[in-house]
């Protein structure tokens, strides 16, 4: 499965419906670009935990892990490997 595509699909269908996939994948800051706010972040975290059986600790909630789709993918991969 392409993890980045899965994440961008979720953002584009659930968090900010209608946002083009290219815009989400190209974004250098999902926050600055207005694609994700704190509520959207909560939705994303719950979805990732349920979908991948991972547990995202408070210490993981740093910009490097959530500012871009690739940052989110890297975090999910590392947590899924450790799980």
């Amino acid at each position: 499965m392409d993890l980045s595509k899965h994440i961008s699909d979720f953002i584009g269908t659930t968090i900010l419906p209608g946002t083009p996939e290219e815009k989400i994948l190209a974004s250098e800051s999902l926050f600055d670009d207005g694609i994700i706010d704190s509520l959207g972040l909560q939705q994303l975290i719950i979805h990732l935990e349920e979908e991948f059986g991972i547990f995202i600790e408070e210490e993981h909630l740093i910009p490097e892990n959530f500012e871009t789709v690739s940052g989110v993918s890297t975090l999910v991969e590392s947590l899924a490997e450790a799980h």
Partner: protein
Amino acid sequence: MARAFFFGDRPPGSAHLFGTVTHVSPSAKPAFAVLMCHAFSEERQKSYRSTYLFARQLASVGIPSMRFDYFGTGDSRGNLSDVTLHSMTDDTVEACHEIRERFQVDSIVLLGVRLGAAVATRAANRLGDIDRMIFWNPVIEGRRFLRDLTRTEAMINLARKKRPSAEQKVDVTGIEVDADTLSETMASQLKELDLASETQFASEFLVTGRKSDKIETRQIENLVGSLAARDKRVCCWTGEEREFWSSRSMYDAFYPRLTFETSIEWLTKQRNT
């Protein structure tokens, strides 16, 4: 009729806990009474109205009940920073003595809402004479519950791309929750909590949960499985019902009708057996 009062004896005569009993008709001879163990923190505030309405429903079918606030929460004395799972268990044991004395019943059913399920479990284990328990959407994995309690602020900061300031990092001796401080002891007790592996003295259980959340549903299934594996009689109900413990306002008119109906039905059966 409901009546509020202070009770508790730690230290002796301190009356440090706030409780409310809901009576039934004086001519009724109740077979048992229900002690409700509240949820914790914001969840307690948001589910408060539901427990009040449930007490009224219980009274309408002849079952007396009592609600109370743990030390350091609600209208009881003390501060949140003094609260631990041990202190909540102590309070519940005291409340069990109080409800027995007030209603002159031999048998009590403990109803634990969210974290109250773990507290009720530990109180029942300590007392050794509680046979029946109800868990409403129990907190099963304490680590996840603690994280959810504390991460809201972290997510807001993250969405603003803010890191905790130096000022926020200095002199932290507890964990900020709802503009109050949770002790490190409570935090570490929560991290270790796993309701599915706790010893359970009681033999009859009603467990309710929501169907819509995958993690929560899996956890409920695990809990029910672990109870059944220990030869407990378990009735489990999961349904599509909103989270009454996290509704946006404590004045929200919503209450968990299906959870109420299931619980009343189960309690009525218990009374008749």
